[in-house]
């Protein structure tokens, strides 16, 4: 239904997106996953005709929309990464404003605004000014505004950044419900792999402008089918231990956090005894050691050698 064909986008010095191919079918939730600076927002802006690509084509229902964007613009609702609302207007006034801009009028406009307020759970706060809202409420209204004109496709750019867990799950549930009950097609951008894992049917993973993996969740996790992710937990590390891990011939992608080290190793090799003897040698107070089933995070780690979140 909607596709990006070999898209590249260059800002003066930065190549933000490099020959990206992507397609979205009716009724899907498609995830776009990647760390900050991966090029997600740029890709999203090109997909929603807000910026022109340096190269490549955007097609909606098989027709290019770069020069004639209006058919696509009518069909999409875009939830920007920023809070694009008038802080000095109330929730209701914001909705009325954007509704009018979409040529909604009178009773129809009122009814639609009420529906949206209901959907995003802000009916009670309708008269409050946006500047007095919590981060989560702003995010919800940010989504609500994008749905006013009942778009077929909802394009969301990191809609849960910087909010409390409750608002976050509220938003995730809302997206899921919109997709299941209203057959809304959703493009969901995030750098939280759990969100994408939970919501999406198909996933694109980007890093530094490149598409590094794509497919269904299962297909992507298959990338790690011949590897295991091993997690080591302890109270404290020392550098020589980490160095020795990194120098081990079968171990790759050692990722160190405060109390946990994850690493990737081939399935057929049993490393448990090696690791345990290493911890003894370096006086590491080992708490646990186990093999994890691979997550999207691990796939990312495997493909890039870096963690999704910095």
């Amino acid at each position: 239904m909607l596709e990006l064909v070999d898209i590249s986008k260059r800002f003066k010095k930065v190549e933000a997106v490099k020959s990206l191919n992507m397609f979205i079918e009716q009724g899907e939730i498609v995830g776009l996953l990647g760390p900050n600076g991966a090029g997600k927002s740029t890709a999203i802006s090109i997909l929603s005709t807000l910026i022109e690509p340096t190269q490549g084509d955007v097609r909606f229902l098989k027709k290019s929309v770069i020069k004639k964007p209006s058919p696509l613009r009518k069909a999409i609702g875009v939830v920007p990464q920023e809070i694009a609302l008038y802080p000095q207007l109330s929730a209701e006034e914001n909705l009325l404003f954007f509704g009018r801009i979409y040529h909604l009028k009178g009773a129809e406009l009122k009814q639609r605004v009420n529906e949206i307020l209901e959907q995003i759970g802000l009916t009670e706060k309708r008269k409050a000014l946006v500047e007095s809202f919590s981060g989560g409420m702003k995010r919800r209204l940010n989504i609500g505004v994008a749905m006013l004109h009942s778009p077929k496709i909802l394009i969301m750019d990191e809609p849960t950044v910087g909010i409390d867990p409750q608002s976050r799950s509220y938003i995730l549930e809302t997206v899921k419900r919109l997709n299941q009950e209203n057959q809304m097609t959703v493009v969901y951008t995030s750098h939280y792999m759990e969100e994408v894992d939970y919501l999406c049917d198909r996933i694109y993973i980007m890093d530094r402008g490149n598409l590094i993996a794509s497919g269904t969740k299962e297909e992507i996790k298959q990338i790690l089918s011949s590897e295991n992710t091993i997690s080591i937990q302890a109270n404290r590390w020392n550098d020589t231990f980490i160095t020795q891990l990194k120098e081990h011939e079968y171990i790759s992608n050692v990722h160190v956090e405060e109390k946990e080290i994850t690493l990737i190793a081939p399935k057929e090799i049993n490393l448990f005894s090696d690791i345990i003897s290493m911890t003894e040698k370096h006086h590491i107070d080992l708490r646990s050691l186990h093999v994890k089933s691979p997550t999207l995070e691990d796939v990312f780690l495997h493909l890039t050698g870096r963690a999704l979140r910095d």
Partner: protein
Amino acid sequence: MKGILLARIREFIRNPFSFLLFTGISILFAWATSSATGGGSDGLPVPVYVEEGADAYENSLKEQDAFHFYMVDKEKLEQELKEGKVDTGVKLSEKHFDILVGVESPNAGLIQQAVQEVYTAETQETLIRESAENKGMNADQVISSYQEALTEGTFDLSVQSFSGEESWKYDESVQRIGGFAIFFAIYTIAYGVVKILTEKRMGLWDRMILSPIRKSEMYAANLLSSFIEGYLQILIIFSVFYFWRGITFNDRLIEILLMLIPYALTIVSLSILITALVKNVQQFNAVITITAVSLAMIGGAFWPLEIVSNPVLLFLANVNPIKYGLDIIQGVAVYGYSFTDLLLPMSVLTLMSVLFSGLGIHLMEKRHIE
């Protein structure tokens, strides 16, 4: 577009503080520096010290229109001159008068001319009275018919010389009120226009681009509302001085306000041009502050342009909207020019406004790709 304007009005009502601040400051500054006695029809204030035996001239002096002569004692006269409150004073004696000049200004010549006329007239009257009495005629009757003839004749003459090209009259109050009003209006207008940049950064602009609303409407709504805010400010300031300070503006306030429409439009256009050239709001604020102050300085908002003699500055003044704005205000309130007399400054302003906004919007659109 109605929707955008409506939202803008709501925002304005909820957050009128910067508007009120700029309006208040202009009024405060102009109030503090303008004198209650000045202002259009009253003429420039000139202190007069009258020596004994010269009382007869006092009344005739007060009757003439171009200047506002007021009586003071000797010490007060010297003090006002020394403090620079006035730049010219007059001392009347029985047989002659002195023009006391504190600061060199072209007004001195005009004042001398005015006082001279009074002396000549008085001397003539005395002569006529004496010869009439000698011939046994009714002296008062002769004098009054003489005065009638005189006022008709010389009145035109003096108006000519005061409004003519080569002479100028510096009316402090109108100058200051007008200067501060159009200077501070720049800020109100500029802060309105730069909302385009803020709204772009916030993503509001993108939202509107995706909607069926046209780009031209988006620009028009912003520019129109910025214009209205700035113009409202000018309106309020002039009205305050008209109604509460008794400044008459030559009884042509409405004309002045109407003729200032092109000025406000030019400032709107200048703001959109600057908006298109800067990278962010902070930069805009810096640029607009420097621009407004320089425009005001070389445009005559803080002091009369007539005391500027540097040719470069004078040339710059000719591409400066503030100068034309002040030309209009002074032209009507001080010199009594008509609408057609002021077509030139209005046309220049209109031209600048078209030029700046065309260029500004063009650059803005080219830049948006980033």
